[in-house]
């Protein structure tokens, strides 16, 4: 490294040809040595970062040097042996590095992609995340188990019910708490309707990215029907804090069966429209067929779950494999396709909307009577009416909402099938009223990581299509 990299592109002046450059003994050692430079500068008490000329203003977040073979493999998506892109050889032509995002309408939030281009062909992609990091895992440690759902519901803001459900399931497993059948059925109803809303929004924004402007309007229109029902039930359109440890916050409103039936009718009619609008549209097919392909092996290696994995042919759904909240009582199919491209992801998600509506209809038909939350007084506050009559009930209510309830020590991992894949919560309790550690396994985090696999070797124009099909929610990625 005789010459420092250009501070704008972060690239060396010319890629080494490889033959005269001796391969490094261990890429890992070298990577660590480089990181050390940054560290020592700061830990030795310096007032300001010393300008080494090696980093851009964003710090060391640059494309790594060409001799970092292992890193290159990651950024080229060639770590898995069977990769289709393994044949992509670095060109000796001049390449350029382009930043897409973080402020870009097609990145669905503050995702930044560093793309190295050879003409119009993508040589490398590096997703750079963290722009929306708000330390929610640490915040979770400062809130009681009772307050926890308020925090986690804001992570994946397009599927808040799934966040709350995963958290509540983890707490309940530690407590060994039984949930009444009606509460379980309400949870299934809300999460499945949430899947419908999330997929509709995804279809709308992806349609917009692909130039189908009407799709944008249609998707939001149908989603609004679902959100109106959420508002009626929980009081809020998003970030509901409705599913809580012990059950749900309130019973369903009067006339909810008619609302669910109306949602089903509206969305199914809309779905027929979308398919007529998109699926046989030659422009749409041209932009989605064979774009952003990921193979089943790559899905396994990179932890890609949910509709992406199912579009690649992995027949796996947590609702079937590890049923939660009594979802095994309802009949539904898990759609899979085999090509793993953007078009197949449309097929899978549209079919999932149908299946979720099917589950919602079954829930509406078989909704059991009973409590909507556990009657375990250790976890559930006393009924409102009791507070006027009993001093003890008032104290009890006060204690639960100020101190919270204690959860036995232990650690559990609970996962639910969110619209984006496996949403897991790893919860460690030390026996107090607050979690010792709350880790969220966000599906978007793993899916964004697999973007290099999907994009390498394709054209720059396909980036938008592939990225939109991943459906990343940055609140979930950065937490």
């Amino acid at each position, binding site marked *: 490294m005789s010459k420092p990299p250009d501070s704008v592109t972060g690239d060396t002046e010319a890629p080494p040809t490889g033959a005269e450059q001796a391969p490094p003994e261990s890429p890992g050692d070298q990577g660590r040595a480089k990181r050390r430079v940054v560290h020592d500068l700061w830990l030795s008490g310096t007032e300001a970062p010393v300008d080494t000329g090696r980093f851009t203003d964003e710090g060391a977040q640059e494309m790594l040097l060409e001799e970092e073979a292992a890193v290159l493999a990651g950024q080229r998506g060639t770590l898995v042996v069977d990769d289709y892109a393994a044949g992509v050889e670095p060109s000796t032509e001049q390449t350029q590095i382009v930043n897409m995002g973080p402020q870009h309408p097609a990145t669905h939030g503050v995702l930044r992609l560093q793309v190295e281009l050879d003409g119009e062909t993508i040589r490398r992609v590096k997703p750079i995340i963290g722009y929306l990091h708000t330390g929610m895992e640490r915040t979770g440690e400062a809130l009681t188990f009772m307050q926890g759902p308020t925090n986690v519901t804001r992570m994946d803001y397009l599927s808040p019910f799934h966040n709350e459900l995963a958290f509540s399931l983890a707490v309940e497993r530690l407590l060994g708490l039984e949930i009444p059948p009606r509460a379980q059925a309400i949870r299934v109803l809300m999460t499945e309707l949430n899947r419908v809303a999330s997929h509709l929004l995804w279809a709308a924004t992806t349609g917009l990215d692909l130039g189908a402007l009407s799709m944008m309007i249609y998707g939001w229109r149908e989603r609004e029907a679902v959100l109106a029902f959420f508002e009626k039930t929980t009081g809020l359109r998003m970030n509901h804090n409705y599913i809580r440890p012990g059950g749900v916050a309130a019973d369903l409103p009067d006339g909810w069966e008619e609302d669910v039936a109306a949602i089903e009718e509206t969305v199914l009619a809309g779905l027929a429209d979308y398919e007529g609008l998109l699926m046989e549209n030659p422009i749409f097919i041209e932009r989605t067929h064979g774009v952003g392909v990921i193979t089943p092996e790559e899905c396994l290696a990179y932890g890609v779950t949910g509709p992406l994995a199912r579009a690649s042919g992995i027949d796996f759904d947590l609702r079937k494999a590890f049923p939660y909240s009594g979802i095994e009582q309802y009949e539904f199919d898990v759609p899979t396709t085999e090509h793993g491209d953007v078009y197949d992801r449309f097929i899978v998600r549209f079919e999932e909307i149908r299946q979720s509506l099917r589950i919602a209809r079954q829930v509406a038909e078989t909704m059991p009577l009973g409590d909507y939350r556990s009657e375990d007084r250790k976890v559930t506050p006393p009924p409102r009416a009791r507070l006027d009559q009993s001093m003890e009930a008032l104290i009890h209510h006060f204690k639960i909402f100020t101190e919270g309830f204690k959860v036995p020590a232990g650690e559990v991992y609970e996962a639910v099938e969110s619209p984006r894949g496996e949403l897991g919560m790893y919860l460690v309790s030390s026996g107090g009223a607050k979690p010792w550690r709350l880790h969220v*396994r966000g599906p978007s985090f*793993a899916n964004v990581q697999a973007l290099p696999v999907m994009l390498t070797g394709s054209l720059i124009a396909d980036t938008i299509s592939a990225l939109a099909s991943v459906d990343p929610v940055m609140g979930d990625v950065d*937490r």
Partner: protein
Amino acid sequence: MTTEPTEIRSPGPPYDDLASRFDSAEFEVSHGQVVVRVPREDLVGFVDAAKDAGFRMFIDLCGVDYLDRDPRFEVVVNLLSLEPPRRIRILVGVPGDDPTAPSITGVFPGADFYERETFDLFGIEFEGHPDLTRILLPDDWVGFPLRKDAPIGSVPVQFKGSNKVS
């Protein structure tokens, strides 16, 4: 920390195979979930063997700081077997005075971001990771905020360029 060992859903052969191959691995069933404690030096070998035994999907990797315990840190790896559907959770103790762990990116490339996140928030260094840099926090952040001894509240928020003002 005491967890009540309970019966697992269906004890299957994958666990038995692994248990017989690694004497050092301690299996336990906690809240119906299979947990195995593995010495730090065996982590990569164990993960590799688990992959061969059917746990082919990488799910999660994170750190936990127990502060008063010895070893202080724990690295938690979650793997998934699709057929039959099984999970395995691998716990690796990492001492506080030597916070390093072997990287499993060679077995599962998907561990890349997760190990970077764990390094970013806990300061656990993964040996053999090709690009161990901060991922969620800015590169010039000082300290590791998810450690239990990291201060919260009443600390000036670190922003880039704030040093230039004074």
